[in-house]
């Protein structure tokens, strides 16, 4: 049997099995949990590389689960877009896993670790499942696996995380219900759950009110999951009070996978011209996301807790991606897809650094970051690089996605969106330089920083890898676009 043929299913099965194994092994010998956990994620990493190579060489993979023919059986369809998102999710979750070992020491009781690793693997299973599947109901199942694991992981955090997680459950469940209702409507009128099958059946039914309702439910459902302003209220609390490692994983992967689902709904299940010509959904989403960018940025300015600042920045960044996807031209779309990668790297690195600061300092308050460059030079250097990328200064990655997004917005003649993108860059400049100023130039305060030093090596390495990749991805964005992203652009753009 050729393993490579099955990598699209293995990438879901491996973390799923490891997740269950972990619970039982944890009962027997706790020290084996972490190696198993790491092994599963390393395998996912290799599988994702295998997948993307396969797709670059041979094109789309269609894998029939259990040999059942679609549209009756579940089908996994992997093209350039999925493979790209899978690669991002696998690598970020691997880096976070390396990071989590020491980071959790101070945030979680040791007896809970096996459960943590299991839930973590379940979350990864869910996210990877959402990305590989070509079946909208199967997608819902994975969406719920990911969400439930997410609720649990967030609730592990400090005291207030339970309430935050509860709010998230309410909102998340509403989002999932909306999505399910959309799936239901589509099933009612087409009788199919397979994306490619639906895509062939739907165009005749575009005028139907049911189709419109289905589209609206799907989009709003996903909008809640990706915290598109003003449906974002659950996110800042959840990501602020969760354990550091969970914040990193959730912020860097969950919203990105949500964007992926949005792209699938708008451009695979529905034809691109549906949201452009038949209903003005694209235009509405452009405006909606423009508002998200502006408000996310403004709200980020007012925060003292740095994790909360990052959460609001993330909300603005989600706006970037939704905007780019809906601009309706090639440049905007490329910008959005490129930003999925860039934002994952940047947000993950920033949350990791915040976790690193919290590790010794026991504070996330921006005011306490004074003079940290002397204690944590490497973390702070990484932080600075990513901060420049967030502002969008070349040659860091952030510049290039912003470049394409702005060109896309100009081509679409969405001038307000252009201004919003620039405005958000400026706000990021204010936010990050205010912090850099504290880190590098304010005189240290004597009480809090006595025991602060550079984070442990296993936490530092992921941070350094991410910061380096922010520059490398920037320098090679042309290559990434020409070998992967340009094939993800929907036809008709």
């Amino acid at each position, binding site marked *: 049997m050729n393993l490579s043929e099955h990598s699209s299913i293995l990438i879901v099965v491996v973390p799923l099995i490891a997740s269950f194994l972990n619970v039982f092994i944890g009962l027997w010998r706790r020290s084996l949990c972490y190696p198993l956990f790491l092994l599963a994620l390393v395998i996912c990493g290799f599988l994702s590389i295998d997948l993307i190579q396969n797709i670059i060489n041979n094109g789309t993979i269609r894998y029939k689960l259990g040999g059942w023919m679609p549209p009756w059986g579940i089908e996994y369809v992997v093209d350039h877009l999925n493979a790209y998102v899978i690669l991002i999710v696998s690598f970020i979750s691997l880096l976070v896993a390396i990071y989590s070992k020491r980071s959790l020491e101070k945030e979680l009781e040791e007896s809970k670790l096996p459960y943590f690793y299991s839930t973590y693997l379940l979350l990864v299973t869910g996210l990877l499942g959402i990305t590989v599947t070509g079946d909208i109901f199967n997608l819902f199942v994975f969406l719920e696996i990911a969400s439930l694991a997410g609720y649990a992981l967030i609730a592990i955090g400090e005291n207030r995380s339970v309430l935050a997680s509860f709010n998230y459950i309410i909102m998340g469940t509403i989002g999932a219900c909306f999505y399910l209702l959309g799936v239901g409507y589509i099933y009612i009128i087409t009788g199919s759950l397979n994306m490619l099958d639906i895509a062939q059946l739907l165009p005749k039914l575009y005028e139907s009110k049911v189709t419109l309702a289905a589209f609206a439910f799907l989009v709003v459902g996903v909008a809640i999951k990706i915290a598109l302003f003003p449906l974002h209220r659950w996110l800042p609390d959840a990501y602020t009070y969760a354990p550091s490692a969970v914040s990193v994983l959730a912020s860097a992967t969950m919203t990105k996978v949500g964007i992926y689902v949005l792209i699938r709904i708008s451009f695979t299940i529905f034809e691109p011209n549906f949201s452009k010509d038949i209903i003005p959904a694209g235009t509405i989403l452009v405006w909606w996301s423009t508002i998200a960018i502006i408000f996310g940025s403004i709200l980020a300015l007012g925060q003292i807790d740095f994790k909360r600042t990052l959460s609001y920045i993330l909300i603005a960044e989600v706006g970037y991606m939704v905007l780019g996807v809906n601009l309706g031209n090639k440049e905007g779309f490329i910008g959005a897809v490129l930003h999925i990668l860039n934002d994952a790297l940047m947000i993950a690195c920033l949350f990791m650094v915040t976790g690193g600061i919290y590790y010794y300092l026991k504070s996330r308050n921006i005011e306490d970051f004074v003079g940290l460059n002397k204690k944590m030079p490497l973390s702070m250097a990484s932080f600075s690089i990513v901060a*420049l990328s967030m*502002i*969008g*200064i*070349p*040659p860091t990655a952030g510049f*290039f996605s912003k*470049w394409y997004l*702005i*060109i896309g917005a*100009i*081509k679409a003649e969405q001038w307000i969106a*252009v201004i919003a993108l*620039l405005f958000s*860059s*400026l706000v990021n*400049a*204010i936010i990050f*330089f205010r912090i850099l*100023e504290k880190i*590098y*130039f*304010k*005189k240290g305060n004597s009480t809090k920083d006595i025991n602060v030093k550079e984070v442990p090596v296993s936490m530092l390495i992921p941070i350094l890898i991410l910061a380096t990749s922010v520059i490398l991805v*920037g*320098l*090679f*964005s*042309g290559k990434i*676009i020409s070998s992967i992203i340009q094939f993800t652009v929907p036809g008709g753009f």
Partner: protein
Amino acid sequence: MEIITSAKPLFAILVSLIATILIIITGEKARNLREAWTIIASIVKFTIVASMLPDILNGRVIEYTLLAITSELVLQFKVDAIGIFFAFTASFLWIITSLYSIGYMRGLNEHAQTRYFAYFAIAMSATMGVAFSANIFTAFLFYEIITVSTFPLVAHKETPEAIKGARKYLVYLLGTSVAFQLTAIIITYNVAGNLNFLTNGVFHDNISHNLITLTFLLYIAGITKAAIMPLHSWLPAAMVAPTPVSALLHAVAVVKTGVFMIVRVVLYIFGIDILKSLDLGTVLAYIASFTIIAASVIALRQDNLKLRLAYSTVSQLSYVVLGVALLSPSGVMGSIMHIVAHAFGKITLFFTAGAIYVATHKTNISQLDGIGRQMPFTMGAFTVGALSMIGIPPFAGFLSKWYLTFGALESDQLIVLAVLAVSTILNACYFMPIVYAAFFKEPKIDKHNLHETLDKRTLKEAPAIMVIALVLTAIGTILIFFFPSLFLQLAQIVVTNTTGGY
């Protein structure tokens, strides 16, 4: 035009980046070695730049493509006459400033000297990058690196005042470049499809005039490093930096990057023909004229020496902008010549301000009575710098003013002629009283501190290395007047290529 492919421009940029790493590794433990890296890097950089001169003077162009990030965003270097003109000036003055910096930092026993030298080297690297950029994207990249790398230099003292100044510096430079310059670049790409610096500009004839006007204004507003009013107030705020920083960066590298970019944009992005047909040159000339006069008037009222010099810089930078805005051969010639003339003159003046501070801890003009007797070399150099600023022969400033005046006549801008005349008088008004006070006024008798007053009659110069540096730049100011042929030749090539010559 013959094109040579060579990695020399890249090396010129990398030299000081490598030096940065060495400086950081060496650190405070081996100060002499650390300073040696700076000196070696500056000399090597200058040598590399100078080695490209013969080719450029023979009308050739050196090109090097580093990396095509995407098909339209390419990191590419091109060494042409104007680029090497700027790079030559800046890299030469870096050698002298390095010497001066060592004297200044040690003389004052400053903290964080490693950081200071490291970021200084990065800033010089990026300055070469702007000078050698082949397209506006590469230029923008290095422009931003300059901003970011000079931020720690402005905030060097780490006092609340320094941090406040640095914050203003950053808000103005980074804010406008992201908001306006980047927008302008993106619009340029969208309508012209080309970001390269071309001798006739990149815009086609069929592009809407309103859009070109908008883009032009966005560029002018976005290149804040040129300190065109009303976006100038970051420059006085940056004076909280140590004096060598003010001298090289805020009189030469950073601000000249600004005017250099303006010249690039005017000549190589828009091109003279388009600006003439839309009369945008005149608009820019009037903005620059206003800046020249207004900044000079403000300079008159400053008692702090460095602040007066800063406003004088604001005013003088607009000479460069004014010259190129005239869009006539002599105007462009004067504009380019003023880059070097002002660089030598103003760096001398800042050097003297620093020397006075190190020797006597004085910062205000009203304290300088009779200081010429105490510091004859320093104040002598100051006089040279001041006379060059006013534009009196035999100093470099005369040359550029000469061409600028011709430029004003060529394009029939009598108002500009008047501006030049008034500004010369204002320059004299704010510089000559200092020279007069230093040499001819009696030192103020301080009754509480009689000993020190008596001291004022004896020689008390700054450390020798600083005095040598400032005397060298003063001599340079005179030498440029007598032997300007190198600079004139380079400027001539630019003028011939862009305006079609006289």
